[in-house]
């Protein structure tokens, strides 16, 4: 019996040992590509999708007026797709801007029917309509006539089958990029009249490089080259198999045994070994997004003995929040915890966003010469940041020199959504604050509950993250207006609503706006609407820097790192590219 047990044990251990080795194999033939991005998408209706994996699928099935393309040098650019060209807009007397697009000849839907300019007009109005209830309906707010409360109001017309005329409320710097965005893809009225059209291969009529030839729900979407696509000749990959799974370990297994050529997720605890074992396959790409911690602006963190009230109290709180933010070592978070090549962040608008001159927006944020952003997050600054934070906090709290800790900082709760990664970061923040005597409880909630709690402002500090929808800083800034649904910090709400303490002076930029001691609504909200109606791009970017300055001065937003997109790709696959929003393009791949 004992011998038998020993034998079994030895067998199991041997199996374990064998499993430690690495194997790299490829079953890629060049005629079919197998990839796995995520599990079954909630929807692949262009209007309804708001997920990155869904957007990648849509870019293969649909073709908008413009598309992301890789040029000979390997740089990404927006080029015309269904449109013959992407002309400049004509500025009208009232400040609105009209664009006229001509569609290419012979455009067809996958079922052979002709595609018309009217299909675009229909699709845009449908996506923007309140009754459609699309997550990305607001992507049309730049179009004249947009009204989030009503249906079919956009100023977009098909003057004939090949001409689309659209009027924007004002000049929009990122308009061409929007034209390549999935929400702007065309759909046909008679197709989408069937509410289930986007759930089965048979009813999925599209106009892009591929059609769905088979869809085994929760398992596999098979995309086959669409011969009706106007540029079908340039498509080099005849078939793409999109496997639907969200288990990172399973993805890795299928990648290792060569069945899948690209996986869009890897198990966090494997990152370190994958980086060294799969040097050519493991990719860390930039992604325009920021992982940050947000404070509830209405959370009272002053000691009980503090006599400050109103605006003075809020100014003190802002200083305290900013100081607490200096206690964190962002390099440690990126290298020891997140481990995916993330970049320590010291500003909210993410890395990857560019100024009109092509420089990085985050490098010019904060106006500091010695470092990027609003504070120095390099390793060498960790100690001085700490000392500075303690100095600031000493102004408000009792500091016990013996223990080097503050004794009267109120207890806080850090709220995060259940996940090992978020928990590890929460624990680090907790220990960093405990080092100066700030007691923090960790509380995790399941995703949907967490969203609800955070939105309602029932937290003191919470985990947060934001990924860009398009390459323009405004998508990081307009979410903080008083009425925005994403205003988790609760700016301009509750007690903060009446605090008249913010200044906004835009006279040097040629505006007559000069508010002293205004509320959030009178300053920040005004600033955002000014940005949205600004037609001078240089001024517009200056305004956006001012908005971020204002945001960061509240100390409520504490950036930790800029996101990266981790994936693994078979080194035999050539011609693949992805864009800064994380969309992946497989149509031009080959062996």
């Amino acid at each position, binding site marked *: *019996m004992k011998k*038998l*047990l020993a034998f*079994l044990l030895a067998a*199991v251990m041997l*199996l374990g040992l*064998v*499993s430690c080795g690495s*194997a790299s*194999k490829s079953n890629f033939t060049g005629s079919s590509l197998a990839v796995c991005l995520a*599990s*079954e998408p*909630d*929807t692949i*209706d262009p209007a*309804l999708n*708001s997920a990155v994996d869904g957007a990648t699928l849509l870019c293969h099935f649909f073709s908008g007026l413009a598309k992301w393309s890789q040029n000979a040098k390997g740089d990404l650019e927006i080029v015309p797709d269904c449109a013959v060209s992407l002309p400049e807009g004509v500025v009208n007397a009232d400040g609105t801007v009209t664009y006229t697009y001509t569609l290419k000849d012979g455009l067809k839907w996958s079922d052979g029917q002709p595609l018309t300019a009217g299909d675009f007009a229909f699709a845009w109005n449908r996506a923007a309509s*309140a*009754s*459609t*209830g*699309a*997550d990305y*309906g*607001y992507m049309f707010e730049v179009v004249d006539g947009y009204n*989030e*409360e009503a249906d079919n109001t956009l100023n977009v017309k098909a003057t004939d089958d090949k001409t689309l005329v659209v009027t924007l409320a004002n000049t929009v710097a990122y308009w061409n990029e929007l034209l390549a965005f999935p929400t702007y893809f065309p759909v046909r009225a008679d197709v989408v009249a069937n*509410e*289930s*059209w*986007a*759930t089965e291969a048979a009813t999925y009529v599209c106009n892009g490089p591929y059609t769905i030839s088979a869809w*085994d*729900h*929760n*398992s*596999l979407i098979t995309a086959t080259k669409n011969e009706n696509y106007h540029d079908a000749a340039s498509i080099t990959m005849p078939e793409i198999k999109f*496997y*639907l*799974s969200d*288990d990172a*370990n*399973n993805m890795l*297994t*299928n990648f290792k*045994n*060569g*069945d899948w050529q690209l996986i869009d997720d890897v198990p966090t605890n494997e990152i370190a070994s994958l980086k060294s074992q799969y040097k050519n396959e493991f990719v860390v790409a930039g992604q325009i997004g920021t992982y940050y911690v947000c404070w509830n602006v209405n959370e009272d963190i002053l000691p009980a003995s503090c006599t400050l009230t109103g605006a003075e109290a809020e100014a003190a709180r802002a200083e305290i929040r900013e100081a607490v933010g200096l206690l964190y070592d962002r390099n440690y978070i990126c290298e020891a915890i997140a481990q995916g090549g993330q970049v320590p962040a010291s500003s909210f608008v993410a890395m990857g966003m560019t100024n009109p001159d092509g420089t990085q927006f985050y490098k010019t944020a904060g106006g500091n010469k010695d470092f990027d952003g609003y504070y120095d997050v390099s390793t060498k600054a960790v100690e001085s940041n700490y000392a500075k934070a303690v100095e600031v906090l000493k102004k408000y709290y009792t500091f016990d020199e013996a223990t080097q800790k503050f004794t009267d900082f109120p207890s806080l709760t850090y709220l995060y959504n259940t996940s090992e990664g978020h928990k590890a970061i929460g624990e680090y923040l907790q220990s960093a604050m405990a080092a100066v005597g700030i007691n923090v409880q960790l509380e995790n909630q*399941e*995703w*949907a*509950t*967490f*969203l*609800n*709690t955070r939105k309602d402002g029932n937290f003191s500090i919470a985990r947060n*993250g934001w990924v860009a929808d398009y390459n323009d800083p405004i998508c990081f800034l307009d979410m903080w207006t008083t009425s*925005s*649904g*994403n205003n988790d910090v609760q700016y301009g709400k509750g007690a903060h609503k009446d605090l008249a303490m913010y200044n906004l002076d835009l006279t040097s930029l040629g505006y007559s706006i000069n508010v002293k001691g205004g509320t959030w609504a009178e300053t920040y909200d005004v600033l955002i609407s000014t940005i949205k109606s600004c037609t001078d791009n240089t001024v517009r970017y200056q305004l956006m820097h001012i908005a971020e300055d204002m945001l960061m001065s509240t100390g409520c937003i504490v950036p930790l790192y800029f996101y990266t997109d981790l994936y693994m790709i078979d080194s035999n696959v050539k011609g693949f590219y992805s864009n800064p929003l994380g969309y992946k393009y497989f149509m031009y791949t080959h062996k």
Partner: protein
Amino acid sequence: MNTKTLIYIFKRILLAILTVWVVITVTFFVMRAVPGGPFMGEKAISEAAQAALEAKYGLDKPLMEQYTTYLKDVVFHLDFGPSLKQRGREVMDIIIDGMRTSAKLGLIAAAIALVTGIVLGAVAALRRNRLIDKIIMVITTAFVSMPSFIMGSLLLILFAIKLMVLPANGSTAAGLVLPIITLSLSPMAYITRLTRSSMLDVLGQEYIRAARAKGVSPIRIIFGHALKNSLIPVITYFGPMLAYIVTGSLVVEQIFAVPGIGRAFVNSITGRDYPMIMGTTIVLAVLIVVMNLVSDILYKVVDPRINLE
């Protein structure tokens, strides 16, 4: 079957219906009491869009009205409504899709577990304390105590990565081999042990000794007398087990990326897909209740001494 038995079965069916109704009611109200909603995401939608969606799916009506409407739809039309997350798909279609895979997987795994389990159990009992018995016992102890995620991972490493004989994802027929084995091993081991101990018990009974004394052939003793009577505990275990493995083992589905019902169930809860939560709960509840009922009735068939009252 006598009248008493029929009355018993009728009562049990009524009780089963009551159980399912309680499950529906409790799930419905608890689900709605949990914070969060189906239309919430990282990026908030406008209030007008939120209202439009709530009106579209009837979520703006009073809760009690929603409840009665739902009950009516389920009972009279067998309509679970549309999914709120997978827009455009009916809950019934999603469940049927998932069940097709889960049931195939579960039934094959259950059949393998049952047949192998009974055979191994009988062999072990008949060869008590011999080497073969010990081998069977060691292996089954290991299988019973090894969680399916470890078993699944080991099989995956061995067959999908090292030997590369089977695929790691359950989207193809060959891909279902590993999940079926993973699913069947633990119940198979349990059934082996149940059969063995119960068979040992039966083999010691006086009627077996009497049969032996009468000179009945060993084969007839085993198959005609001992085996049948030693299967009663197996039947008790088998009914509920079948319901569980047929409705999908989440862990196994996750490891092998099998598109079954287990994953759909969990995703529906995290996404607050109300109709989907209700639909899967009802299907699971009905299956478990029915399987329990069937195993109780089977008892009676196997052992007439059992009084169903």
